[in-house]
């Protein structure tokens, strides 16, 4: 089955196509002009990312970051389309006891260092990443400084 290639999909197209293809694994959380917010299950992330890159033509991963909500962690992807300025905000929730997620670095080369940074600061392991090593902090660091459990000296 060959899928149609969308050079500059509209907000509605993105919502409909993703909903049609992935069903319940992806929850659409709303949209604004040029923004689509969605949240995906961990299992379908790589497939979804490939779909967004290849079919919907989101050529760049603007940023990959993590947020520590204490009850769980969330990995947030911001994906940009260069033809109409659209941006997808994709969140993936991870349970605290299983901090692994598929790496999107093979799809978007730009996500490479973002994932390394997220790994070293939050301890989230990206499976399939070409080189998951510490980037900003020294190589012998033992802890993950951006987690909420890591308190700064002056923090109250």
């Amino acid at each position, binding site marked *: 089955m060959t899928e149609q290639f969308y050079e500059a999909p509209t907000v509605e197209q993105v919502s409909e196509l993703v909903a049609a293809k992935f069903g319940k694994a992806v929850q659409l959380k709303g949209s604004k002009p040029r923004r689509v917010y969605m949240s995906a299950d961990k299992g379908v992330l790589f497939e979804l990312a490939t779909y967004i890159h290849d079919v919907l033509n989101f050529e760049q991963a603007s940023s990959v970051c993590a947020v520590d909500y204490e009850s769980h962690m969330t990995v947030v992807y911001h994906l940009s389309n260069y033809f109409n300025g659209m941006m997808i905000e994709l969140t993936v929730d991870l349970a605290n006891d299983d901090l692994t997620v598929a790496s999107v670095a093979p799809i978007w080369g730009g996500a490479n260092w*973002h994932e390394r940074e997220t790994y070293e600061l939050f301890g989230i392991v990206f499976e399939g990443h070409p080189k998951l090593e510490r980037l900003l902090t020294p190589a012998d660091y033992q802890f993950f*400084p951006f987690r909420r459990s890591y308190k*700064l000296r002056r923090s109250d």
Partner: protein
Amino acid sequence: MSKMWVTMGPQHPFSHGLWTLKVQVDGEVIQDAEPVIGYLHRGWEKECENRTYPQIIPMADRLCYSASMTWSHLYCKVAEEAMEIEVPERAQYIRVIADEICRIQSHLMWLAAMGTDLGNLTIFLWALREREWFLDLNVKLCGQRLTTNFPRIGGVRNDMPYLFERDLMRVVDLFEKRLWDIIALTDDNAIFMSRMQGVGHVTRKEAANLGLTGPSMRGCGVNFDVRRDDPYMVYDELDWEVAVCDDGDSYGRYKVRIEEMFQSCEIIRQAVAKMPDGPTRVKAPRNVPEGTHVARLEDPRGESLMYLVSDGTDRPYRLKVRSPIFVNVSASKRLVQGGRMADVPAIMGTIDMCLGETDR
């Protein structure tokens, strides 16, 4: 001669800051490269979690010394989005003008660095001479040269001072003439051209995939500018062009930056002509309602993005900064591979390194 690894940095004239580029050379030809950063990592994002919203603005200035205006603007923008306040129109125009002043002076700083990278100190000093005017404008507008601390959540710090428009117009007019003098040293110079053309070639698809943004990306033929395609402030009301060049080499990236300086002058001119009267600042609430917000903006060096998670208190729960250089420098292996040792400054110079925002 067998292959050897040469470590360029962290104290190296080409690196413009503290970072290392390890290159494997076979004679003069580069086989492999690996950038190493992190010497300046100070946990900026973590520090913000312990500061109130207004206190972060001067900190955002310190992300990059030569793009301080756009960084603090971006922070204010994401905070405004979170607080759901709209900036008064006059403040929007002032912000646009301030951003473009910042863009010109940042590009001039880049041009200066590019000159020394290629061994010509004259370009450096001439570009810095013109940059001084824009820094003087910064002094006049907000009282500081580099760390401006000018945008505020809900507007700008102060209105334009007396006779600022006049000075601005004079500087812009004179600068456009003087820039051609520098171009005579670069474009009209066969040696400069031979150093820049054909080195660090990246195709459009690769550039988009590697996450190059800003002039580096537009020099490779990606026709995208956040100012036009995801407009903020009043950029969509002004008539200007996005500089795009299909060359994909160092010279293409150079051309895009030069054109952007001219376009910035035009934006400033139009913004001053169109500027309405009115208030410049809205009182911002202290606490921010819960939610996640994202804002992006065209930094002089690329697309900068901030992701804010607020939890209803007066301090951000998490503030993520997407620095354009952080991603651009990750592509340096692809850029310098196959080039020569002498091409490294010519290629990495067009990335316009700034380590403050890379390591954060």
